[in-house]
């Protein structure tokens, strides 16, 4: 049987970030996959050696639009680890609130995209409508929907005013009924069960061997979460649960993310209720020579920053590692053996954020029959329609 290579990307119209997958297929089954990423390499590690510690937190924020809290959080923890020093309690709670708000809006974004890949465009629009409420909350509290500019080595830059909290709580409580309806609609739907269960399985041994992180590994039964293993911020003072499921297929990844949204809402409400008073900033003036490591559980996994200082006011080396960097190689284990129509949903299941991974490359393509990105999504939506017809659902 002739093999052909199908390219997806680099300008994949549905996933907003550029990437290039070349899938080698044998008829309908995928036999090999190669990922070339790196269209977004901006040289941020070298750039942050030119800015002072305080200024480079703004560059770090703009590594990724969706995980705009994770990178500065890990960076400021790394710089504080050089000294080492603990920030005031109020700063810890404020940081936790912003981090959990970002987790909710990132999971809702992914939820909408997954609905679109499967052909449920209504879910896509409803979930993104919900997400607007969360972005309004971010604007009320920090001043902007996206790049919050609130992290600083030594604390936070701005304070939260207690007058804003009633409106914030009203908006957060307002999304819970719709979220409940969507959760039940997704988890009970037999079409989705047929479509997503048993697809793209990542076994527990492979998750450990590839060092996968975040919901990708928690869906495979590997209970890893930086917030529980190495607590920081306000996570050790609030009661919340880590969601772990066993099967490792795409359905479990959906379940983990949806349930994590509920946990985040619980954490935000507890933080607002228990917010202590006091200082918000330590006013650190000098960073002594040394090394520091900071980690934070982003919506996609663990973000890891390593900072080395040589006594001046600029970092000597800053290493950024986003969670998608460790999750992307798992494609070799999950996609091979599946059909083309499932390829898009499996590739989207690890919630890739390529801006965080900072890579770039260009590749050649061989083969006669080529599907583009649009075609693959259309194939995925057609498969859902076929399953619906088989089950007798209109």
């Amino acid at each position, binding site marked *: 049987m002739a093999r052909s290579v199908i390219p997806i990307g680099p300008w994949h119209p549905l996933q907003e970030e550029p990437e290039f997958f070349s899938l080698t297929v044998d008829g309908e089954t995928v036999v090999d996959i190669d990922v070339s990423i790196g269209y977004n390499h901006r040289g941020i590690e070298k750039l942050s050696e030119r800015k002072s510690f305080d200024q480079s937190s703004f560059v770090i924020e703009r590594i990724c639009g969706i995980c705009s809290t994770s990178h500065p959080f890990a960076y400021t923890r790394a710089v504080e680890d050089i000294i*080492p020093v603990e920030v005031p309690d109020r700063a810890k709670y404020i940081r936790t609130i912003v981090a959990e708000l970002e987790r909710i809006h990132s999971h809702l974004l992914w939820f909408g995209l997954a609905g679109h890949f499967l052909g449920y465009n209504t879910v896509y629009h409803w979930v993104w409508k919900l997400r607007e409420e969360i972005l309004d909350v971010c604007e009320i509290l920090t001043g902007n929907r996206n790049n919050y500019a609130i992290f600083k080595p030594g604390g936070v830059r701005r304070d939260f005013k207690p007058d804003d909290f009633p409106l914030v709580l009203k908006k957060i409580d307002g999304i819970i009924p719709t979220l409940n309806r969507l959760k039940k609609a997704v988890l009970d739907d037999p079409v989705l069960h047929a479509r997503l269960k048993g697809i793209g399985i990542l076994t527990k041994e492979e998750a450990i061997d590839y060092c996968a992180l975040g919901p990708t590994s928690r869906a495979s039964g590997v209970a890893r979460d930086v917030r529980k293993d190495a607590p920081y911020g306000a996570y050790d003072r609030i009661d919340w649960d880590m969601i772990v499921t066993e099967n490792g297929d795409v359905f479990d990844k959906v379940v983990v993310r949806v349930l994590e949204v509920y946990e985040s809402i619980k954490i935000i409400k507890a933080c607002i209720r228990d917010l202590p008073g006091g200082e918000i900033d330590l006013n650190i003036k000098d960073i002594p020579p040394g090394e520091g*490591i900071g980690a934070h559980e982003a919506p996609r996994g663990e973000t890891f920053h390593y900072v080395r200082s040589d006594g001046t006011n600029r970092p000597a080396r800053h290493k950024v590692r986003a969670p998608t960097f460790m999750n992307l190689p798992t494609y070799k284990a999950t996609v091979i053996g599946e059909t083309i129509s499932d390829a898009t949903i499996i590739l989207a299941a690890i919630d890739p954020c390529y801006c965080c991974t900072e890579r770039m*490359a*260009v590749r050649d393509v061989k083969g006669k029959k080529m599907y583009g990105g649009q075609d693959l999504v259309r194939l995925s939506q057609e498969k859902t329609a076929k399953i619906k017809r088989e089950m007798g659902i209109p």
Partner: protein
Amino acid sequence: MMTREEVLKDLKVRFKEDIVDLFDKSPKRVYVEIRPEAIVKVGTYIFKDLQARFNVASGVDARTHMEILYHFSLEYINLLISVRVKLDRKAPAIDSLATVFKGANWIEREMNELLGIKFRGHPDMRRLLLADEWPEGVYPLRADYREWDVNAVRDRGV
């Protein structure tokens, strides 16, 4: 499940002639320096026997030598062990850990093209980040890479 002190004592005893320095910085951070020849032994032991998770490896261009730090997380005791190796700056080379666990594959490709460190025995050494047209032998993350300062454009008044 060993405690933190047992882990450190075990490392010191087992790799007595390979460890150059062990810096116990704080309850959660330990920095161990070893000789470059022993990296596969130490890496395999920490990953498989201590059941650590491999985080990432940071390559650093200290001006007199090259360094690589391999960060491993032991989640059950909340400890992060960073294994440091110092390499010669003219021709840095070290054995690859990609055959031991697959998580090290991509990061070694990245360090190879950005800093110029060779990894012996890596199964698939290709370009990861840089374009195919990028010239060979030019390593952007090294401290003596200055071309981007020369070509930078500022188009502003004052």
